[in-house]
Structures are given as structure tokens and as C-alpha cells.
């Protein structure tokens, strides 16, 4: 075959890769997308909640045919100790608008749909093809890729690395460091089948309405972590994730945490009688702003999880991935339209576009949060949930103790556990990390 050259090669067919490939292909660029999985989505794992606004910016009429599960009308946040949960929840009929704000999705199905859109936009998509190496010219500019299939290198003006959190290729090529264990969470997840009506009844839902629960507390056994439960149409996704460094230090097993979470009295009844359909595990980049690597270079840009773009505080990842993929695609399109080469200098446009977007602004807002939660994980994930739960119980339980004594006991418990200065310090640190 004659040596063929593409305008852009996208490595990976997840949210970021599909967004980038679609953005470029729909603007007339000759795009090749390479995916190592058997089909797009086969390697991808997410909770998963999909955010409409960010997808609308790529495919405005996605609701016409995208496989969506339920639109979310309710979110619960639970602080848990071993037997109780104290929570905050928000439910609004306003979320039953015609253009729903958030949906639960099943990534295997959703990604197939997204990939079909990418192909319809004109990109060439090859699955079961792993990129083994970035090809460079004598000046070090990335000029294409080599794959694990027999054949020559494939040339392109620019390579978009959307290879996911592990980023093996980028690391091997020296474009980034190996992610640090304290900047990566390991999450495990199960899909539990339940009939649609049962889910509707248990969560008080109707007509494709959905509910999500995010939970933190003693379930993570003092590690920095969160558990979740999302309602799909005919199944429930349930999972838990903690920092890899914490797993390493405590020698806890992820699946044991998930078993405990599933058996928690507050959760057990919600999933009772269900059948496990699927088990998955994945890494999540949680290092936040300070862990973002170099995002562009001579002939390359990096997007999505591979660029560590994930908002751990708000549990948002796929929208940052989609947006970074889209902006990379737009930047490449603009550079090309201007007739300029894909040099580091010109591709800096991607970074400046990303800086102006919510992606970097949000991550910058929470830049100190990962370190705070990591170094104080026992307080935030065990001590406070226990104290809050005890306080709530003290408030609810009716006996002959005078109310004033109850309040004093609660206050005393907080001070005993964290001391006055400790409480003030935690509040100040949290407020600073949040601001």
C-alpha cells in the first residue's frame, strides 16, 4: 500500500477520543481513530453519568438516538457509619424538563453509539489495534504511530492521545510521568439487574426518572474514597473507589469494600433480589489540577483521563473528557485552517482554550482538595461521619434525657474527638480547599 497520511490520528475511543475524532471529522479532517479494545467501549468503565450540556456542544441532537438510561431528578449524598447514614438530598420536578440535564448511561452501549457517530462523520475507526509507539522525525516532532498489526507506520500531522488514565504510550514516549498512586483511585463496580418497576418503586421514580446516591464514611475504612449507586433503566450500578496509595497502605481489598457497602443496612434493601450482571474495575485520575501533565507538544496533544482531567470532588470525568477532546479537535481544526503546522507553539491554542473553559477553572478551584482529603482521610472519612451520625441519633432518639443535656453531649463528643482547635482547623482547611 502506498504510504498514507492522515490529518490527525486519535488514540483511544473513549469519551475524549470520540469527542476529538468527531469534532475533527465533522469539520472535514481526514481522521484515523485507533482503539485497542474489541469494539469501542469494550475497555471503558464509568459509573456512569453523562452530562448533556457537554455532549450537546458536540452532537446537539444526541437525544434522538443515543442509548440513555434514566434522566436524573434526585441526588442523595450520604455520610455513613456502620449502621446508619445521615444525608442530604435534592429532588426536583424541574429536572423533568424536555432537555434533561444529566442521564445515567451504560458505557458499552453509549460508546458504540458515539463511535457510530464518529464513523458517520467520516473518520476511519480501527478496533483491536494497539498503538505501540509514537513515530518522530529527526527534530522529535511526532509524525505518526506504529501499531501492533503488521504493516508500516501510519503518518499524521498531529496525534491526539486519548488513551485513558494509564497513559502507557504517553509515559513510554516521555510525554508525562507515570501517575502517582496518591493521584489515582481504584474503583470497582457491579451492575445489578432489577426489573424497571422494582427500581421505580424503591426509589419513588416514574417514566425514566433516575436517582443517584453518593456515599462517604466508614465504608471506605478511613481511606479517601467514595461509594455510589446509580439507577439505570433495568439495572443499578453500584461501586466504590479509594486512592491506590491508601489501598497499598491498608492492604484492603476493593471487592471487600464493595461487599460491605452492598451489605450496609441502608443499601441492602435497595438492591435486594438483584442479579449481578457485570463486574468491572478501573482507575480514576484524582490528582486534580496539580497532577495535570504537559498537554501539548510538537505534533501531539493529550486529552481526557490521559491528561488527568477529572473533578474528583464533583465526581465529574466524562464531561471534562468530552470537552477537552472537543477543544483539542477545534484547536487542531483552527491551526490547520490557518495553514499553520502542528508545532508545539501552534498547538498551545488547545491549552489556552482549555484554560478558558470550566475544565481548568473547576480543577483550579479544587486544587488543594486532593491533598487535604488524602492527608486527613481518617478525620473526614471515619471520625466526622461517626460524629454526625451519633449527633443525629442523639437528636432523633426520644428518651427522658433533657434536650440541653443531649446537645451538650453532642458538642462534647465532637470536641473529644477532634479538640476545639482541630475542629476549627478542619473547617478552615476545608473552606480554603473549597473556595
Amino acid at each position: 500500500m502506498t504510504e498514507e497520511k492522515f490529518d490527525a490520528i486519535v488514540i483511544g475511543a473513549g469519551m475524549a477520543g470520540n469527542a476529538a475524532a468527531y469534532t475533527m471529522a465533522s469539520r472535514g479532517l481526514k481522521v484515523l481513530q485507533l482503539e485497542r479494545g474489541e469494539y469501542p467501549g469494550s475497555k471503558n468503565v464509568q459509573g456512569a453519568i453523562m452530562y448533556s450540556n457537554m455532549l450537546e456542544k458536540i452532537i446537539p441532537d444526541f437525544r434522538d438516538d443515543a442509548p440513555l438510561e434514566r434522566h436524573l431528578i434526585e441526588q442523595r449524598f450520604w455520610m455513613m457509619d456502620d449502621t446508619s447514614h445521615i444525608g442530604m438530598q435534592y429532588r426536583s420536578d424541574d429536572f423533568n424538563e424536555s432537555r434533561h440535564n444529566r442521564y445515567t448511561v451504560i458505557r458499552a452501549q453509549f460508546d458504540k453509539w458515539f463511535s457510530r457517530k464518529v464513523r458517520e462523520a467520516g473518520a476511519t475507526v480501527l478496533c483491536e489495534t494497539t498503538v505501540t509507539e509514537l513515530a518522530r522525525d529527526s527534530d522529535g516532532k511526532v509524525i505518526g504511530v506504529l501499531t501492533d498489526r503488521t504493516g508500516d507506520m501510519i503518518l499524521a500531522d498531529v496525534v491526539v492521545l486519548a488513551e485513558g488514565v494509564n497513559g502507557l504510550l504517553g509515559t513510554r514516549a516521555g510525554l508525562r510521568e507515570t501517575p502517582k498512586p496518591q493521584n489515582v483511585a481504584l474503583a470497582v463496580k457491579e451492575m445489578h439487574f432489577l426489573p424497571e418497576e422494582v427500581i421505580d418503586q424503591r426509589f419513588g421514580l416514574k417514566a425514566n426518572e433516575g436517582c443517584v446516591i453518593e456515599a462517604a464514611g466508614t465504608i471506605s475504612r478511613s481511606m479517601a474514597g467514595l461509594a455510589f449507586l446509580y439507577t439505570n433503566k433495568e439495572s443499578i450500578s453500584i461501586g466504590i473507589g479509594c486512592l491506590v496509595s491508601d489501598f497499598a497502605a491498608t492492604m484492603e481489598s476493593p471487592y471487600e469494600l464493595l461487599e460491605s457497602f452492598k451489605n450496609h443496612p441502608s443499601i441492602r434493601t435497595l438492591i435486594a433480589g438483584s442479579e449481578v450482571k457485570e463486574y468491572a474495575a478501573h482507575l480514576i485520575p484524582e490528582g486534580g489540577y496539580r497532577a495535570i501533565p504537559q498537554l501539548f507538544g510538537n505534533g501531539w496533544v493529550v486529552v481526557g483521563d490521559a491528561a488527568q482531567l477529572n473533578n474528583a470532588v464533583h465526581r465529574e470525568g466524562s464531561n471534562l473528557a468530552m470537552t477537552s477532546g472537543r477543544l483539542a479537535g477545534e484547536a487542531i481544526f483552527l491551526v490547520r485552517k490557518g495553514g499553520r503546522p502542528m508545532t508545539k507553539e501552534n498547538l498551545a491554542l488547545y491549552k489556552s482554550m482549555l484554560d478558558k473553559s470550566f475544565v481548568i477553572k473547576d480543577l483550579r478551584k479544587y486544587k488543594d482538595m486532593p491533598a487535604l482529603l488524602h492527608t486527613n482521610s481518617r478525620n473526614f472519612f471515619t471520625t466526622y461521619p461517626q460524629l454526625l451520625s451519633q449527633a443525629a441519633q442523639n437528636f432523633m432518639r426520644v428518651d427522658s434525657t433533657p434536650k440541653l443535656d443531649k446537645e451538650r453531649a453532642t458538642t462534647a463528643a465532637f470536641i473529644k474527638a477532634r479538640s476545639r482547635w482541630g475542629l476549627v482547623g478542619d473547617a478552615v482547611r476545608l473552606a480554603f480547599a473549597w473556595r
Partner: protein
Amino acid sequence: MHILICIKQVPDSAQIRVHPVTNTIMRQGVPTIINPYDLFALEEALRLRDCHGGEVTVLTMGPPMAEDALRKALTYGADRAVLLTDRYFAGSDTLATSFALSQAIAKIGETFGAPDIVFTGKQTIDGDTAQVGPGIAKRLDLLQLTYVAKIVSIDLDAREITVERRSEGGTQTLMTKLPCLITMLEGTNEIRRGSLDDALRAARSQIVKWNAADAGIEDLTKCGLRGSPTVVKRVFAPTARAEKAEQIDTTEKTSRDLAEELIAGIFSRQPALEDELAFDGDD
């Protein structure tokens, strides 16, 4: 040489689940694959082409999404793919399927050259009948070699092929004239990994799509549900039996002891069987 291979897109049976409430098979969301038996036939076809030259055409009948299976076959290195798809084919049993496929094969012969060999897998994992291959051979009046484990040699000048066929109690070495139909056994080879060029070509190929008319099928009463005497009345998961499996302790027992224990166990649960078999006893 023109080699044609019939493949089928099937649900990955390893991933099929039963609905816990309705006890029906849940097909939704189950990934589809190329019938694994067909991959052995495809690899054999590709090897023959690589050795002797020619073309490999892949044919399937199915819904539009069966295009994925054909594209995958092209990724492995097949030269051409034809998708036979029409709502008239819906609900086909093996009789109707072999009719439609044989008509399409005849049409492919007219369009791209008559095939010297038609391959199919031994059977499919969703139907398990092993009837479609022989059905095609019969309709096209092709010599048929079923359960082939190995292609020993092929002589294109003499138009002869020699194969090893596995049968009960041994292996037969058979020679026959071309054209012929071969159904390939599993485990005979391993499907290759297509080259980058093949993968790129597959990703961009236009799959030839034929409806009944395109395939030259005039008699629609032989197609689909109307042409299918077999009717699936119900699909369900068998309910678990109340009886539990029992393990027989084998330590320090002769095989005779074990056999007797086993027979006694069976008779204790099926007394009628004991009476029935007693009449056959001649000792």
C-alpha cells in the same frame, strides 16, 4: 480460485442471561460475534487463497447489523463481503436459510465467478443444527465434505481436493472433485490477526448489500417465516430441578462397586426403570 465462505453473526452465548422474573432469554445488550466455528472455516479459506491465489468472498444472511461480522471478516483478510438482508428473510429456519444462501451463492457465482469451494462452520452456536451447510450443498448440487479436520491437498489442475474427515471411531481421508462444500471442524487452526492494511481496507470497505430481488430470489414463499416449517414456540430457561446432584465417594472402591452403587442409586429414584430393564436381562 474463488472461495466462498458462509458465516453467521450470533449472540455471544457466554454472555446471555436469563431474565430473573420472566425466565426468558435476554438478548438485549448481548454482544454479537462471528459464530466461532465459522472462524476455522474462514482461516482455512484464507490459507488456501494465500497458497494458491484467488479470492475469498464472505457471505452472511442477517439483519443490517450483521454488517459488523462481515467487516470483521474483512479485517481478517477476506477480499469481499456480501450481506443478504431483507425483511422477507426474518424468521428463517435452516430450510429457508439454506434456500436463500444457495440462491445468493448462485448469484455471487454469476457476478464474481463461480466458487470452487464453499465453506461453512460445522454448525452455529445459537442453532446447533449443522443443517445449513449440507442444505446448501444439496440445493447447489455440490459434493459435500462435512466435519473436515484438515485439508490435505488441493490440485487445481485436476480439480481435486483431499481432506481428512473426522467420524465416529476414526478419521477418513476423502478425495473429491471441485466444486465442493466443506463444513469445517473446530480446533483445526487459529484465526489470524489481520494486517494494518487489511484492517484499514475493512474499515473503509463498502459491504455489498443484497435484498431478495438482488440475490435473484423470485419465490418469496420459500423465504423467512413463510418458508420455514420449523416454528419456535417458546424460548425459556429450564427450571432448576429439585433433586440435587450427589457425589459418590470413590476412595478404596473398585469400579464394580462404583457401578453397582450408581445403578442402585438410579433405581432407587426410578423404580419403573428397574422393572423395565429387568425384562431385557438375559442372565
